[in-house]
């Protein structure tokens, strides 16, 4: 009993810490003075000091400010991408489970199709064909991340549909939409929330990697992928702080989201705490 309690407390602590961390990043990213990322050529390439926690880059811009703004921008892009993707998954899962065999076959087939192509390849293709930029990345993440969640939603709805109380409800003459609204939707909501949170780290990482490869945002915008890809050019001249701190921050941000998502799932379905992971 004690162990479980501790675990629960630990999970709660971790979740709160993660939320605080992410909230802090966003607040800093939105409030830090834009003047910090104006070029100051006289203090370029400065290693980390108290004044510039993460050092400065080759144009003398404060890397701490750039990193925070970059993470915020990347999180914004990731958030929008993951949200759209979750919506697609919800709609398709619903369609597959409720609209008959043909619809199910079509959705299942396209789910398999999308799962069979690596995310990143699809993402590159989509953002390239949309001409890159924020639009390309958001559309790319939205269109590539839905399949596994759609599959889960579909299975969930099918299970609920065959549950006894739904059958009873139907025999009692409740119309289809009433069942969908009152019996099915409340049950898949937690699944959607958890799915959304767990999709988020993927979306950020993919945003960062597409931008890193040069197909994403314009290279002077402070997105985290751009910061990382720029820093590669300066690694051989020994400017390690350009890559180290932003990379670490990205890692923490992604880890924080994963922790929130994972813990939320445990709180909603405590039985999953004992799942093999």
């Amino acid at each position, binding site marked *: 009993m004690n162990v479980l309690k501790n675990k629960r407390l630990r999970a709660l602590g971790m979740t709160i810490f993660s939320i605080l961390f992410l909230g802090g990043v966003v607040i800093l990213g939105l409030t830090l003075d834009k003047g910090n990322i104006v070029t100051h050529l006289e203090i370029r390439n400065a290693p980390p000091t108290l004044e510039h926690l993460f050092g400065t880059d*080759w144009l003398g811009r404060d890397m701490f400010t750039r990193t925070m703004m970059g993470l915020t921008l990347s999180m914004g892009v990731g958030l929008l991408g993951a949200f759209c993707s979750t919506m697609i998954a919800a709609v398709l899962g619903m369609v597959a489970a409720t609209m008959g065999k043909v619809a199910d076959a079509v959705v299942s087939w396209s789910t398999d199709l999308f799962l069979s192509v690596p995310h990143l390849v699809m993402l590159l293709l989509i953002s390239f064909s949309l001409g890159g930029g924020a639009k390309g990345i958001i559309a790319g993440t939205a269109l590539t991340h839905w399949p596994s969640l759609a599959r889960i939603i579909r299975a969930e709805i099918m299970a609920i549909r065959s549950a006894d109380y739904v059958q009873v409800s139907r025999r009692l003459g409740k119309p289809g939409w009433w069942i969908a609204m009152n019996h099915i939707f409340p049950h898949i909501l937690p699944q959607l929330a958890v799915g959304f949170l767990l999709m988020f780290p993927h979306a950020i990482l*993919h945003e960062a990697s597409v931008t890193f490869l040069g197909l994403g945002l*314009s290279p002077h915008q402070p997105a985290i992928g751009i910061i990382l890809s720029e820093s590669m050019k300066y690694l051989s001249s020994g400017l390690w702080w350009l890559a180290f701190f932003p990379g670490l921050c990205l890692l923490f941000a992604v880890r924080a989201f994963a922790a929130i998502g994972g813990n939320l799932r445990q709180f909603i379905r405590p039985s999953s705490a004992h799942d093999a992971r």
Partner: protein
Amino acid sequence: MRSKYFASLAAILMFFTMALSGCGSDKPGSASKAERKKDELVLSIEGEPDAGFDPATGWGRYGSPLFQSTLLKRDNNLNIINDIATDYSVSDDGKIWTVIIRDDVLFSDGKPLTAEDVQFTFETAKKKGSVVDLQILDEIETKDNRKVVFTLKKPQSTFIHSLIVTGIVPKHAYGKDYSKKPIGSGPYELVQYDNGQQLIVKANPEYYGKKPFFKKLTFLFLSEDATFAAAKAGEIDVAAIPASFSKQSVPDMKLKVVKSVDNRGIMFPCIPAGSKTPSGLPAGNDVTADPAIRHAINRGVNRQALIDGVLEGHGTKAYTSADNLPWWNPETVTKDGDASGAKAMLKNAGWKDRDGDGILEKGSQKAQFSLYYPADDGIRQSLAIAVSDSIKPLGIAMEIEGASWNKIEKKMYSNAVLLGWGSHDPHEMYNLYSSKYAGIDYNNTGYYINETVDAYLEKALLSTDVNQSMEYWKKAQWDGKTGLSGRGDAPWAWLVNIDHLYLVKEGLDIGKQRIQPHTHGWPLTYNIEEWKWAE
């Protein structure tokens, strides 16, 4: 779910390692220092030609053709001297150019080079219609084995540049794969060429000129990082490096700084918005059409700060497209880094910040426009950011946009663009500023039109006397009243000339290097015959 998240982390990690190892793995020709002979060199100086080594499609435009020789050439002070020509003359009307060539020149396959080969070369180059523009050429005739007569459609003094850069190809051995297997009469002949990797050449025993000291040269086509790594490892003798690496010392190598006209500047649309180019793209910009804006940027930007900050001090201030070349007018040098002067200019022209947002207005027009730069070019990006930040205090909001060349080509007639030029051919100035080239490709993209300048440019082109044409080129830049430079109409804000940096093995003498044009690489080997080990 959890394992998936690790998987994607692993994917990112893999990218990093791939990006890193991708630079390191393509390291051919890694002959160690010990086994290399004294008369062999390994160079990594960029500049692999996309179209191969065929002078008819552009090989040698920016430097020595290496395999071929040319009719005329420039010495290290950029004076024109003979190569395989022994004499040339221009008729009084400037249309007929007669060139006499040496009779002792052999191709590397042992066959003699005759006037027919010259005729064949120029006819082929004209027919191919590549970057080599010989449309001015009407016909080419051979009088005997040594005499070639070029007839132009109209006089053009810059035609001499075609005689300087066009390597002569052998008529008897010119086939489809010539660009991969060149044969010529130049100082070196081809041994092996691996596309994208390396080029190996050896000294041509039939070469008529001064025999080069180095018998074998290996050119590696490596990325910047790989070049630097190879230089550190002592595997190469000459390495081209970007300014960001110049602060680190490399054992046994010294830094050689070569001045250049490899310039970068901002081209402004000089006409108000609303026009269209012949291909239907929007042209003109209401803000940059105001000369006060262009003059204020020219005056306000601190070029020395850009050189120190972005180029690590390895550059010179740029004022025109042809700084320090024989046709450059030194009077075009103006004051810069003068914010108060720039502000006064804007004020006098009626620009004022009425709504207090830090951006000036004139009537309903805000001093706001976009500057496009190619997204994959780090130096242009840094210059764009630095200039944009430095003119913000003047009240000019220049938003920067990184884009692909494809996108820039659609935007460059209606927005400011960060471009770069620099050539040993004065004709470039004609292309950039003449109203005849307005809106044609990357030439006068800003629709700069000034009748006085046009007249000078035409006169420079039509002049049959080289010295006289130089005077006209100079007057086009600034004649005391007007001109195409920043002192005159300022259609451009030229920023910097980028020094070309090379790490050269200690003790290797690469002679006196001339002012290099808009590219690394081949200009360096122009004087390859002079290269030697000190003592």
